[in-house]
């Protein structure tokens, strides 16, 4: 029987991906093209993030995988299993214990440290795609720092709704140079990218791009002086289990009473807070 290589990919492929990462770190926010490999999981299911993780991971690493804030959702479990099966590394649900955190659509609530790398899965790396479908043209706009289209898009939303309607994946300006999609994290998480201690890497497998925000980089959400950037508001709502209000909340419906209630979206953080509460009580 054939042995699957350590971390699945052949060594030349991993080397190529690491070279793309280095280029991305050197040019914060710039989308580095790379020859994305086909992975055993679906394109659009985190193959960009997975390739970054596999290219970086060594036997000493500890891996945490998050999908929309949860460690035990289908895809997070699946990705974790695949990496573990091909590397044998330790996995964890605790943010602070992980050396590599691969995440889809969330930056953990627990602050990251300089010992850590955050890998984000990216469905659409191109912030200008909504206004220009041609890759040939968007590439030129970036080269010429021609971002009026991105601002115009937000301006039109404000004209129409008196506020932006971008939802998640709200574009940011990195290091004063490149406009970048932060992946579909809620706007709530955008400020966490600014001057983060950890290296943040973005992998788009289907679109074949890798980009990076090195530690302590200036990252500003696009906005206007008279219409500043606003994160999701959960005014007056708290997590039913922990009482926390300064976190991103999931909206749920109580099956018995039919009432709407809220829970902390970052499940591992919620469990840690709950565990501490129990410990204090005892």
């Amino acid at each position, binding site marked *: 029987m054939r042995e699957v290589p350590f971390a699945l990919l*052949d060594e030349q492929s991993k080397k190529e991906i690491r070279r793309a990462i280095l280029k991305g770190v050197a040019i914060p926010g710039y989308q580095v093209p790379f020859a994305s490999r*086909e992975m055993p999981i679906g394109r659009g299911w985190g193959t960009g993030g997975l390739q970054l993780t596999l290219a970086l991971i060594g036997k000493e690493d500890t891996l945490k995988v998050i999908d929309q804030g949860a460690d035990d959702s289908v895809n997070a479990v699946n990705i974790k299993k695949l990496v573990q099966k091909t590397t044998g590394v330790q996995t964890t649900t605790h943010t602070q214990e992980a050396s590599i955190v691969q995440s889809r659509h969330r930056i953990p609530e627990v602050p990251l440290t300089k010992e850590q790398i955050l890998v984000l899965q990216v469905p659409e790396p191109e912030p200008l795609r909504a206004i220009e479908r041609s890759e040939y043209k968007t590439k030129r706009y970036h080269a010429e720092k021609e971002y009026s289209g991105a601002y115009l898009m937000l301006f039109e939303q404000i004209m129409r709704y008196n506020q932006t309607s971008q939802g998640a994946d709200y574009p940011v300006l990195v290091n004063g140079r490149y406009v970048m999609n932060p992946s579909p994290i809620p706007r709530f998480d955008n400020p966490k990218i600014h001057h983060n201690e950890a290296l943040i890497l973005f992998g788009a497998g289907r679109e074949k791009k890798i980009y990076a925000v090195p530690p302590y980089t200036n990252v500003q959400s696009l906005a206007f002086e008279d219409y500043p950037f606003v994160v*999701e508001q959960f005014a007056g709502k708290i997590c039913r289990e922990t009482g926390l209000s300064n976190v991103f909340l999931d909206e749920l419906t109580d099956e018995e009473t039919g009432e709407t209630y809220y829970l902390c979206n970052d499940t591992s953080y919620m469990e840690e807070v709950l565990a501490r509460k129990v410990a204090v009580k005892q």
Partner: protein
Amino acid sequence: MAYVAVRGGAEAIEASLEHLQYERVKDGAFVAVETLQATMRGFLDQVMSESSLYSEQLAALAMKQSEGNVEEAIFLLRAHRSTLPRLYYSTTTDARSMFVLRRISASFKDIPGGQILGASHDYLHRLLNFDLLQETVEDVAAQKAEFEAIEVPDNSVLQLEKLPKVMDYLRQEGLIREFPENDAEPSDITKESIAFPTNRSQRLQTLTRGQTGTVTSLGYAGLRGYGASHPTVGEVRVGWQSIHVALDDGDDPYYIGAIKLTEVESFIPVNVNGEDKQVVEFDVGYGACFGQNETKAIAMSIVDHALEVGGDTAIHDEEFVLLHIDTIESTGFISHLKMPHYVTFQSKLEQMRAIKREGKML
């Protein structure tokens, strides 16, 4: 994890995977990989072509493992490809030296070497053959023996590995628009992602790996008025193509095997500015793919030409065609919509409610 309603825990996933395994065996039936390899030519050819991995055995294995799901079989093979080091490129190979199993031309009745029909579904009445419901191993063996007892002349006059090309005949007459030879090293799209504008080798690679149905539909659109191409099939040839690898320049190349290949050259009339008048010449649209995939290869030749000459419809738009034609990418991204989008949806929801509350009246 009692307090989160909508998450698949590890146990649920395990159970789902077991369920899938059970589905494959629940009727107690068994089929050997060798059997699939021997009897499922068309499926294997399509899957090898779209996964761009030439191995009938692995394609049959993928078919068995995926319960005959084309999309999944291709997925398995592509993922397998990613674990393999890429060591060599073959030397240039020319289909003039193909050992031809089938070769037809729609342009000329009498082509040098003749029309060789080979094995094709084209001339078949597509009626279900209910006899196959009762077919046994013995029946197959008997049929096989019957066919193999047919007398064939010892010395065939046809040199099946030296059949001239229809195109060469037109070229000699000066009817094919001349282009300078392009023998530049092809770009390997699996080692470097394509950038726009693309070169032809990138386009041909992307098309030959493209999803059969998609390539066919785009070619069809080109015929139906969404393209400037009105091709005549100059030649379709299907056969065994020898592949060689040269380890270094001085050495003779090593023969590493033969692959079954379909190659198509379509003739497409174009207006060319002659010395003092407009003349019509032919362009050649090119299609080639692993296995016997004639529809795909013909459609590919149409799309190849459409991308080459440009135009203002979708099939002339290289970004539209090349970025959406890949089986793995299209099926992957469509299926990702089944993943949870709770956070992004919540973010949108919060904004919609705010806009409803405070938004400007238009």
